[in-house]
């Protein structure tokens, strides 16, 4: 279990992270979200032991983070962290042995992973000669080569085509199912929704939202109603509790302040003919994120 308790980080007088709290259990994927400069990288660096925290405690399976623990952590950084002059094999031997693996173990694990990611032929190629997508695959392989118990994935799908995104998703879920703890960070909220049961949103180092995704969505007052039928946008906007109406193709998406106002919209629909669809949905994480982050920035 990874526990982050009351962690604060100052750079001189600048507060980078304030009183951060969360925990991740084995087999859990945790979303750590925030716009650029929110404090995500500082948090990752404190978890991986790169930075000392100013206050608080971070433990992995009950042990404070130090160099006896960090070998059990895999870190896929947002930007490439590869020595591109090396071949894939040389890079794997370097990072793997640095994480305490034997040469033989690195070679056998590398062969398995290269096969899994369909890039066996690039084993002896220099990393700089590979495409952006294949470099991302190599970077991902390097972060899981030593079978970490905690895996930090910062924008793991960067530079990947849809087919390879699916491949990555499968591998991430396999690690989750095998009991790894995973911290997932991405600006793509659909990916976060796909993976994360729990999440935390940081704004200027402060936690603005934290909890299980299901609960967050449930507790979120605003709801979306999707309607297909002979309705008019102007009439919908006049209904009590309606915040906005958007048209996407034939479909109207009506945002209401809270669940209670759904009945008012339904009463309006009942007066209309040819209504093919009336569905009440939870808001998307993207909407929640934009609202929460926006509110905090306006403060």
């Amino acid at each position, binding site marked *: 279990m990874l526990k982050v308790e009351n962690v604060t980080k100052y750079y001189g007088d600048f507060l980078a992270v304030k009183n951060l709290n969360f925990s991740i259990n084995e087999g859990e994927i945790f979303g750590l979200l925030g716009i650029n400069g929110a404090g995500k990288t500082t948090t990752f660096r404190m978890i991986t032991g790169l*930075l000392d925290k100013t206050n608080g405690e971070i433990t992995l399976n009950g042990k404070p983070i130090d160099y006896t623990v960090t070998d059990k952590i895999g870190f896929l*950084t947002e930007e*490439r*962290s590869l*020595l591109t002059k090396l071949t894939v094999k040389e890079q794997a031997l370097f*990072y793997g042995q*640095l994480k305490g693996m034997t040469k033989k173990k690195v070679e056998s694990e590398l062969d398995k992973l290269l096969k899994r990611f369909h890039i066996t032929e690039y084993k002896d190629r220099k990393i700089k000669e590979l495409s952006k997508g294949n470099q991302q695959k190599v970077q991902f392989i*390097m972060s899981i080569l030593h079978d970490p118990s905690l895996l930090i994935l910062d924008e793991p799908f960067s530079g990947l085509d849809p087919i390879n995104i699916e491949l990555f998703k499968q591998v991430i879920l396999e690690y989750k199912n095998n009991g790894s703890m995973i911290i997932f960070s991405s600006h793509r909220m659909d990916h976060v929704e796909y993976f994360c049961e729990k999440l935390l949103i940081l704004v200027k180092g402060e936690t603005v939202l934290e909890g299980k995704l299901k609960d967050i969505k449930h507790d979120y007052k605003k709801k979306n109603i999707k309607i297909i039928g002979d309705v008019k946008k102007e009439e919908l906007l006049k209904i009590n509790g309606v915040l906005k109406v958007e048209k996407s193709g034939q479909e109207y998406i009506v945002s209401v302040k809270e669940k209670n106002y759904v009945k008012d919209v339904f009463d309006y629909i009942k007066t209309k003919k040819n209504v093919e669809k009336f569905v009440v949905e939870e808001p998307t994480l993207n909407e929640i994120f934009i609202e929460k982050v926006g509110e905090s920035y306006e403060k």
Partner: protein
Amino acid sequence: MKNKLMFLIGEGLKRKINTKTFKIVNIILILAIPILINIDSIIKMFGGDFEESTKIYIVDDTNSLYESFANIYEETETISLSQTEVKLIKAEKTREELENEIKDEESKNIILNIQTDTENIINAELISYEDIDQFLKQKISSALNTLRMNIAIQESSISIEELENIYKSVEINNVILNTEYDETAENIKTFGYALIPIFIVPFFIITIFVIQMIGAEINEEKTSKSMEIIISSVSPNTHFISKMVTVNVFVIIQSLLILIYSAIGLFIRSKVHGAGILESFGINVGQIGEMISGSNLLQEVIVSLPLVVILLILSIVAYSLLAGILASMTTSIEDYQQLQTPLMILIMVGYYLALMASSFENSTFITIFSVVPFISALLAPVLLIMGQIGLIEIIISIVLLIIVIALFFRYGTRIYKVGILNYSTSKLWTKLFKAIKEKN
């Protein structure tokens, strides 16, 4: 962590040595160094005018002065500045025939036409295709003057004894009042001056090599962000030490290889010349041997050499540490090239003061600088050879360097820890000064 340190050092060395660049550079060096050492023999092997000595055809209109002139010419001692090898030949052809020959062949040979005027005074004409080496011209002129004086003396009534006395050199007895003066020591000092460039130039090159290599190594890992992965497995201190050791060991390996290539070149040279290595360069080994055996030089070397070696090693370590600290603060190799300028200036100061030391003997300014860390490595050994400082100054230099190295380890590693994860140049110095205050 110790195993990881050894792993990083081993991996770093392997990555440096197992490159095409290293292999190609060493193939070039193993060919180039022996070639350069034997370049004179190689030039001669392809042939050329230099093999033939210049012939001076003496056209003696008097029919009586050739022998005397040849004897005087051979005995005329001049400073050996002329590069022209000369052979005197009594002309059997006429001046005109020889002139035509030289002109047709564009030859470098010379005609010396010795004549007498109506008053029986010697005149001469030098005829050549191109202008003549000035030093050779002076030697011929000097020999002709002596010849003319000899004839004048012979025509006078001076006896042989008187003539010998006239020509006898004036003996100058040099009386030195300094009771501590040691002629052998002075000779050794002169010999030492000749060794100064041989000592400081390689040290200068090695230091610059180390500074640039450490900068490139750290910058590569930092800019590729692989530093974040490495530092999550080993502490910044371990990483820092691994870089220092890797680069210095690599420099030692490369230096040893260069020495081996030089030894091969010298071996070939001694075989080609059929003489000892030093003799093949025209160095009188016997004279140097006598000079050394007649002085306390060996004893002094045995005492001072280990101290000088320690001073050099510590200086390289100090330069490495400073280069590593500076490299951690930069965000690109271009930044580092700018930031290493103060280091380059320090080396240049040491280099120029070492070169200038012989012109400003016993200068207090230079003596003080000889113990200043970073400069002492270049300056102190030179002043020691010149006898301007003693072992005590070398020991002070070593102590000061140890203090500097300890400070670098204590505070520099704090800067390094912050610097390697900093990718912004904004408020860089503020961040680094704050880092110094934080404990590791």
